[in-house]
């Protein structure tokens, strides 16, 4: 366990509070404020905002920030936790606003073409192999993209952990929306900790550092949103998890054949992919598949807006801000006061952030 010298502690807290007071002086957009309720809102008084109940609550859950098993002196830790919870929440709140401004600069639904791949906000193409876990890959594709956009972290998140632990499905199929719900409450492991083996396996007890802060359907699950709605969601949240009807023609499509379009292929859905952009000149979406980089165009495909039910049950997710989830200052506090290293942090990451 790493230990910090005690005199550093008050200095760090002072710096943290000063830093927050500077950022808090910035004017915020009314619209954004209504979307992301501030702890300063009179409605919340001195309490904290609870996402699920949409109410102020007395205490912020310890697990929300620390992710470790509760030690015996957890009440003592919780007291410190609560002391800094508002500060950390506010940091994330500011971060969300920055994130929205960033997205507005980068992506506009009025543009004739945009995609997150060319913006460098999509992780490499994966390969699900013979397991029907496309739903997990689509979910992690959307999450990893959001993580890149929000935190600029190119993380490889464990689809196997999702497969084993989320309860959202199996190698026999599943849906991505329960995965995101699972990411709100529990989190997902790193690929390096639970590597993909393409079979149904038991849930291992790992640290699960990758968490979502929010998710939702673009419209409702049983619909295909309109082109405009999907573009708006892509800009607002990043890449989306969507369903599609995969056919032999879909699987065998070659990029040289242009945009994929198939007549009479609108009977249901059987596959999930990540929607990463659009091009009105092509009248097509850009999708990232999970069939390896040898498929179609290096694992991607341009698919017509109106074919194979592409876009069905479109779902967005927002990765938890690293600023909020893995806070170096808070980590140092934990080490100093309780001799505990937050297992949320991989040792390498801990070094990277100066722990």
């Amino acid at each position, binding site marked *: 366990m790493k230990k910090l010298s005690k005199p550093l502690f008050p200095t760090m807290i002072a710096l943290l509070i000063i830093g927050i007071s500077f950022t808090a002086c910035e004017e915020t957009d009314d619209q954004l404020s209504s979307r992301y309720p501030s702890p300063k809102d009179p409605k919340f008084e001195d309490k904290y905002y609870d996402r699920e109940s949409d109410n102020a609550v007395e205490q912020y859950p310890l697990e929300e920030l620390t992710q470790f098993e509760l030690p015996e002196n957890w009440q003592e830790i919780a007291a410190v936790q609560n002391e800094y919870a508002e500060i950390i929440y506010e940091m994330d709140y500011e971060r969300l606003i920055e994130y929205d401004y960033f997205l507005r600069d980068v992506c506009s639904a009025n543009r004739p073409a945009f995609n997150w791949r060319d913006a460098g906000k999509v992780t490499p193409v994966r390969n*699900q*192999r*013979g*397991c*029907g*876990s*496309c*739903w997990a890959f*689509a979910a992690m594709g959307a999450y990893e993209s959001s993580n890149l956009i929000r935190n600029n972290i190119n993380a490889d998140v464990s689809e196997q952990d999702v497969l084993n632990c989320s309860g959202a*499905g199996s*190698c*026999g*199929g*599943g*849906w*991505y929306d329960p995965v995101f719900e699972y990411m709100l409450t529990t989190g997902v492991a790193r690929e390096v900790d639970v590597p993909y083996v393409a079979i149904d396996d038991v849930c291992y007890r790992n640290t699960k550092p990758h968490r979502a802060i929010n998710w939702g359907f*673009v*419209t*409702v*699950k*049983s*619909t*295909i*949103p*309109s*082109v405009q*709605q999907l573009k708006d969601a892509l800009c607002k949240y990043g890449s989306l998890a969507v*369903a599609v*009807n*995969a*056919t*032999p023609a879909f*699987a*065998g499509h070659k990029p040289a054949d242009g945009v994929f379009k198939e007549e009479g292929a609108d*009977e*249901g*859905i*059987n*596959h*999930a992919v990540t929607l990463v952009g659009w091009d009105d000149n092509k009248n097509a979406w850009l999708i990232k*598949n999970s*069939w*390896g980089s*040898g*498929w*179609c165009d290096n694992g991607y495909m341009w698919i017509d*807006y*109106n074919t194979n*039910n592409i876009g*069905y049950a479109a779902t967005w997710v927002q990765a938890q801000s690293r600023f909020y989830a893995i806070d170096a200052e808070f980590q140092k506090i934990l080490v100093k006061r309780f001799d505990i290293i937050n297992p949320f942090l991989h040792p390498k990451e801990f070094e990277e952030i100066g722990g």
Partner: protein
Amino acid sequence: MEQIILLFHLWLFALYYQPADLTKMILNEQHHNQQVEVSYRDTLIVELPYQPGTGYYWVWRQPDGCDRALKLLDERSQSGQNRPSQDRSGLARPGLARPGLARPGQESISQLRFLVVKKEACQLNIDLKRSWEDHVLREYSVKLQIK
């Protein structure tokens, strides 16, 4: 009277005559590595489970010992049953879909239909593979005795 006899014969003909290519023989997983008797002009249907969401499809291995004896008529598959309601030009509309009937990654049935065009013994080989990869995930084979 002659007309009645003619109609009677036509009725008998319609009752007993069955075009050879309408006789269907359905094979499935249980016939893997088995020997099966089929008749000339039979329609041979091979039904095998697969998962469209993986990109792996059953394909007739070429060249194959049954190249001359069989002619591939078509390949079909059962797709999922979720029928989304949609309005591409405006707002999406919920309501018509039956969520839960189909889900990404689920299993489906692949159907390859062959016409038996030559009397001979041969081994039919079908591979579960991705068209852009050499790797074969599963193999299915059946020995045909064509009479």
